[in-house]
């Protein structure tokens, strides 16, 4: 309703009618890569509330795992996620080893860390590529995908496959994934290549005024909100909170690395966060190759026995991942997997709220979603 006050046309706030529109997308929507449902409640192009639902790609891996011997179940956990497949098999082997009290050789520990860091590299580069694609900057996306291929080649060299490489087995690592001196040199050369190329990419990225003005200040998430929602991983670190589960893992003790943080919690901070973490990962990989101890890579001296519920947490590219096993005669009786995106879904919703609707997709992508692995049967316990 428009009224005239003193000759000027203004809006009368009390009589103005605001319509809330609902925009929903999904669950299988051609524009979203993964199936998930977003409902955005919009007033005046500003998102007032957002709701993300998952559940369409529930395949019930934990249910399939029940009754299988623990080594077989470990191999299945890899199929939880195609991005952090190594994170899952690493953590489930770690859980099984903890439960059955299996000692792992030192060399295997180093190589597991190596695989984990290579995976972080490819996941962060995928994030940068996907983010650039959503920003509609295809040139950046192609450029970073090209650099990513060098990491995929290393994973192919180690595991013999580009996605499901299955490096860890119960008691150590697969003999296939052991490194000889030529392969070590190749990894070192690739790390130099990545450092150089990603630095050049990042420089070009931050020097682009169009891109920077698009991403600065969009999808802000404050540190308090992030802590309240129990956000993990780089999304939490992008709000300035220093928390990285790698600092608490015994596997990472021999290596020196910094916990990177960024301020702001917006899309810019998220993107820079991942870009700077790439250099930390290449640094860890160099230390792994330099300090790689000689010796056996797998300990086959173990027995399948009963074990009470054993829990294990590790840091995967998107945050903290949780696995637990309860074993009976070495067969899985109970298993729970919680992936980091589970807690980051709240961050995705929250970062959409209060921002224009055209930024919503970008804000969701900036929290690095992986809805496939998040699709587990969950129970929310109100405290």
């Amino acid at each position, binding site marked *: 309703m428009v009224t005239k006050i003193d000759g000027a046309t203004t809006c009368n706030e009390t009589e103005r009618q605001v319509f809330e529109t609902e925009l929903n997308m999904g*669950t*299988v929507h*051609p*524009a979203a*890569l*993964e*199936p998930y449902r977003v409902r955005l409640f919009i007033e005046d192009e500003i998102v007032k509330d957002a709701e993300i639902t998952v*559940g*369409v*790609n*529930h*395949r*019930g*891996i934990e249910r*399939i795992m029940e009754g299988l011997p623990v080594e077989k179940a470990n191999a*299945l956990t890899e*199929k*939880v*996620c*195609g*991005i952090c*497949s190594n994170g899952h098999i690493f953590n489930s082997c770690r859980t099984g080893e903890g439960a059955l009290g299996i000692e792992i050789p030192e060399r295997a520990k180093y190589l597991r860390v190596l695989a984990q860091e290579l995976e972080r590299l490819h996941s962060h580069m*995928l994030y940068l*590529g996907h983010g650039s*694609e959503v920003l509609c900057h*295809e040139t950046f*996306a*192609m450029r970073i*995908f*090209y650099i*990513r*291929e060098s990491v995929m080649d290393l994973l192919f060299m180690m595991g013999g*496959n*580009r*996605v*499901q490489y299955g490096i860890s087995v119960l008691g150590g690592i697969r003999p296939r994934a052991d490194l000889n001196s030529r392969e070590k040199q190749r990894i070192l050369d690739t790390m130099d290549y990545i450092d150089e190329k990603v630095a050049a990419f990042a420089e070009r990225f931050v020097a682009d005024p169009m891109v920077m003005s698009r991403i600065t200040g969009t999808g802000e998430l404050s540190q308090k909100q992030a802590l309240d929602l129990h956000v993990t991983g780089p999304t939490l670190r992008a709000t300035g909170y220093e928390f990285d589960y790698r600092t608490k893992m015994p596997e990472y003790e021999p290596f020196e690395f910094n916990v990177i943080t960024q301020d702001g919690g917006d899309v810019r901070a998220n993107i820079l966060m991942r870009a700077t973490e790439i250099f930390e990962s290449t640094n860890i990989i160099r230390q792994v190759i330099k300090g790689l101890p000689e010796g056996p890579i797998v300990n086959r001296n173990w027995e399948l026995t009963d074990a009470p519920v054993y829990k294990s947490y590790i840091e995967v590219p998107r945050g903290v991942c949780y696995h637990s096993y309860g074993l009976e005669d070495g067969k899985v009786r109970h298993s729970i997997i919680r992936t980091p995106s589970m807690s980051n879904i709240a961050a995705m919703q929250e970062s959409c709220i209060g921002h224009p609707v055209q930024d919503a997709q970008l804000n969701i992508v900036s929290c690095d979603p*992986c809805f*496939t*692995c998040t699709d587990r049967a969950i129970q929310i316990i109100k405290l």
Partner: protein
Amino acid sequence: MGIKSLARKKAIHLMLVYTGGCNGCDIEIVNTVLSPKFDIEQYNVYLTWNPREADVLVVSGPVTHWTKEPLIKIYESIPKPKLVVAVGACALTGGVYKNIHGELPSEEIAGPVDNVIPVDAKVPGCAVRPEDVVAGVVSVIPILLEKEDK
């Protein structure tokens, strides 16, 4: 070769539908299109997200019950002639998610893809290699052009 198929040959559009696999295959397919190393665009194949524009539907994943309906809808809204390429062990056989039960039917999986929609080409692998995706998609183009002329 008729004028229609001659024109079509220059702009084949590929659409990706994801039906509940582990994401590994999807990323490899996106890699096929976006990564300059594989670059399916050199064969005049482009990625689209609009079913009405698409010629080739690339399906990955074992088709969970929830994604069955949308998959049929997307398939039906693609104009003729259309072809379907099933990509990955999941799309071909149901993969680990379906077959691990042995004789028992899985409660979650409605697939594999050819239970739901007709499939013209199958690309195996878990996860598929981008080279194989390129080969699979390029090998169905002649069939598409033949159908176009009819």
